[in-house]
């Protein structure tokens, strides 16, 4: 029995009873783990904004930003069902396992996309709704349909889709795009490549088998290690730039110093290693850096939240270090 037969749906094998999708299967289409990052970063964007909104409006905004992100995940699964059937990491998803048809996933994703954009627009403003609509379009059309199977730089440009939520959260309150929200966007945008390529280094077979052009396959693993270091070096000034805006504060300063030092050390270690050493310890460093990269983003956004709380409590002056406030 090969992988294909294990992964075949009941209707393909003809031996099992028809399997109806449960509620949990439709929920899984929304990529709940990715959604948790969307919720968190959007919430930080919303709470760090210089104005405030009614709690019900804020809750509605976060909910529909999350649903919009989930909808784009469902549309991504619809488009990438063929890839998901091949990859070990994804072959149990609702479509490849036969619990949900591709048509159902498409309809579900489109309906939720429309509902989330309309509801965000009604609850907050058209800028936030427009940004959410663009994010869904970017993730599904630009990333999934165009870049993912075409260029090994897919993750660099496609990472923009995951970087929009704090900007949308900020826009939901202020109705504008400002230097703070642009820098929060850039922080996630520049963070995504080293984060994802660290994963690609130790999950190599999955992407190769699916025929997705990852940097590890097209340019080699040495080049991937170089890219991880280069993007991490670029991430440092981007993350420190936020310090000099109205949302910068002491918590962010401490977090930025510590987390950048840790991430840089990890990227440096990845760069210094070669495949022989990495395979010797089963990619222990790469796995550690991947985990640290999650702490990095979570830590910096938590620090923004702490500074926002300190500011609203009057412990620190509003406007942050604010060199760039305009």
């Amino acid at each position, binding site marked *: 029995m090969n992988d294909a037969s294990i992964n075949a749906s009941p209707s393909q094998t003809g031996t099992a009873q028809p399997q*109806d*999708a449960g509620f949990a299967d439709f929920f899984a289409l929304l990529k709940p783990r990715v959604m948790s990052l969307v919720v968190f970063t959007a919430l930080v964007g919303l709470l760090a904004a210089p104005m405030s909104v009614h*709690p019900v409006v804020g809750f509605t905004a976060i909910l529909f930003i999350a649903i919009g992100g989930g909808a784009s995940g469902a549309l991504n699964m619809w488009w990438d069902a063929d890839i998901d059937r091949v990859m070990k990491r994804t072959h149990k998803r609702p479509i490849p396992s036969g619990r949900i048809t591709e048509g159902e996933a498409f309809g579900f994703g489109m309906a939720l996309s429309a509902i989330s954009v309309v509801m965000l627009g009604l609850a907050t403003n058209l800028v936030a709704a427009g940004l959410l609509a663009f994010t869904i379009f970017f993730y599904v059309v630009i990333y999934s349909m165009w870049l993912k199977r075409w260029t090994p730089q897919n993750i660099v440009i496609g990472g923009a889709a995951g970087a929009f939520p704090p900007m949308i959260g900020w826009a939901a309150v202020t109705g504008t795009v400002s230097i703070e929200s642009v820098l929060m966007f850039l922080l996630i945008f520049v963070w995504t490549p080293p984060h994802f390529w660290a994963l690609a280094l130790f999950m190599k077979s999955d992407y190769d088998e699916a025929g997705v052009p990852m940097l590890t396959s097209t340019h080699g693993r040495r080049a991937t290690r170089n890219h991880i270091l280069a993007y991490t070096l670029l991430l440092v000034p981007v993350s420190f730039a936020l310090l000099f805006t109205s949302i910068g504060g002491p918590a962010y300063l401490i977090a930025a110093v510590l987390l950048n030092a840790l991430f840089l050390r990890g990227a440096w270690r990845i760069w210094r290693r070669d495949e022989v050493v990495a395979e010797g310890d089963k990619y222990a460093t790469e796995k550690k850096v991947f985990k640290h990269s999650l702490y990095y983003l979570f830590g910096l956004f938590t620090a923004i939240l702490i500074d926002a709380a300190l500011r609203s409590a009057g412990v620190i002056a509003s406007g942050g270090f604010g060199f760039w406030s305009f």
Partner: protein
Amino acid sequence: MAFFRKSHEMHDRRFSRNLGLGIVLAAFVALVFGLTVAKVSQEEFAVPETEKGVGYDE
């Protein structure tokens, strides 16, 4: 005679899906109601001119 008609096997299979959808729809109604209350309670809320009919009292 049974009080309730025995449900079709399909209904059993789809129970979690139908229950989940029902809860989501009820939550959506509650959310829209809550959002409406929050919106009209805000200070900047103003009744549109077209809605101010005869006898409208500021």
